[in-house]
């Protein structure tokens, strides 16, 4: 047992869990290969990882570093970046999640389904963004007053 652990690098349970994982996900992959559009599904699977790890993360990390850096150069208090960072992060999350309706990208299919257009969502999104930044500004002003 000790020899196994030294050679493999972890316990037999570890190996068993990984083999089980590969077998089960492998059988799902075989089903996808049998069905229509396996290449598109694979592209979206890998694309989701690349989009997160190589695009989304570097973008928000870079934005955060430049914002924090600018404030540090102005000798702002360490937590002051949050007055901007938090509403910006929440707004960015809403845009990321609701991209199809905010940009009206899915309007044709939505009209087929519901008979409605998507004209209202951009304005609603902008109002929520305004409320987030406005609320943050208000809290900032109140905290300064004290």
């Amino acid at each position: 047992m000790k020899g196994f652990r030294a050679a493999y690098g972890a316990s037999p349970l570890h190996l068993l869990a990984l083999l089980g994982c590969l077998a089960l996900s492998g059988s799902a992959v075989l089903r996808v290969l049998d069905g229509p559009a396996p290449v598109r599904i694979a592209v979206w699977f890998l694309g989701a990882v690349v989009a997160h790890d190589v695009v989304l993360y570097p973008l928000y990390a870079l934005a955060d570093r430049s914002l924090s850096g600018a404030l540090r150069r102005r000798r702002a208090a360490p937590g002051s970046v949050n007055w901007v960072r938090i509403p910006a992060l929440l707004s960015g999350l809403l845009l990321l999640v609701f991209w199809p309706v905010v940009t009206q990208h899915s309007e044709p299919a939505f009209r087929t389904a519901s008979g409605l257009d998507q004209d209202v969502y951009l304005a609603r999104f902008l109002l929520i963004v305004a409320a987030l930044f406005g609320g943050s500004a208000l809290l900032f002003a109140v905290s300064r007053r004290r």
Partner: protein
Amino acid sequence: MSAPAPGPVRPDGASHGPAYGWPRPLWAALDRARPPLRVLDPTLWRSPLRGPWLTAVFGAVLLVSLPVVIVTGLLSYAAYEPRFPGNAFPADPGWLRLPHFAWPTSPSWLYRVNQGLHVGLGLALVPVVLAKLWSVLPKLFAWPPARSVAQLVERLTIALLVGSILFELSTGVLNTQYDYVFGFDFYTGHYYGAWVFLAAFLAHVVIKLPVMLRSLRGRSLPGELRTPLAGTRSEPYDPDGLVALDPAAPTISRRGVLALVAGASGLLTAVTAGQTVGDGLRPTALLSPRGRSYGDGPTDFQVNRTAAAAGVATSAQGPGWTLQLIGPTEVRLSREDLLAMPQHTAELPIACVEGWSTVQTWTGVRLRDLAALAGAVDVASARVVSLERAGAFSRATLGGSAVREPDAMLALRVNGVDLSLDHGFPARIVVPALPGVHHTKWVSTIEFSA
């Protein structure tokens, strides 16, 4: 206050990782090699908040909540009754499904709650998943990439885990907003993606559960919730490489990060939950496609597929429409014939796989009365065909228990008025607890089988 917090100490000279496995010289050589990319330099990761405890907190939240999303997802597939051909997609997943069973028709809110949970919780977990990925991202760029076969294979399954959760979240979010940009059948992709996720999730839990529990015990949650920014320090050095070797001064406390993630989940819930909760709260679902009002008339509720889109606007309104019942005897009924039969009224939801639902008061002829009229006894299934020709759900098969269900009906009226064309005039199926797309609209034929 602005003094840098004391960081973890890298034990001098010691390699900061687990021991090499077989073949030792290979892993040792890889470790000694210079990282080929600057992004692989561990000192680039500077957040003082990353560490085993914070990762374990996000992990614990996901460990409790993701199984609910997985189970409701598998149940949703079962609710389509895949035992009848043409009812569910993918049509034949082999043994990658729950055992066949007759989906219950009571309580009537069963599918509504199931999908409300699946979609609502899935959406609320988007910020938690992103935070969890943020907390472990340095490990993606760790050098050496592995020290043993165990680590190498585990990293492969982590790629499956991350790929599948991002795939599931993105296809799910896009589908609820009617954006089919991915170009494959949503049901098929989302269903098999879920099995890959389930496999990778189970393995990850088996391997990481002890680490998670140990890490959670490393700090006290109430203690962290009392610690402001001024008292926030880096977690102590950990060999797993989550803690920054050269941490920057903190700009937010751990409780601040937890509140931010919880707040983000709450925000996503706030702008969508009204689509599931009820028609009074629907206007609060500001960014949900199903947060819109159609007006306040008796037929002004959510439409799933318009008559125009289904191509039935003319055929459904024509004077020649009759309902064909096929059983031991064949019967043709006009809408007047149907209205002359005993009418049943029930308040029942239409609940969509996309998570939205709407409860209305339906009136029509019980399916079991129609079955009796066609001379069908011991009905095993009823195949319902719409006037619509093209759509994936222009036909659906109901099980015997759905036909016998006292509230299951061929609805002719809703909220005291005739069905509108978009809601299925001249007649539509309404069965408690079944997915919305099986409430076939513009019905032309019902074929009962024993």
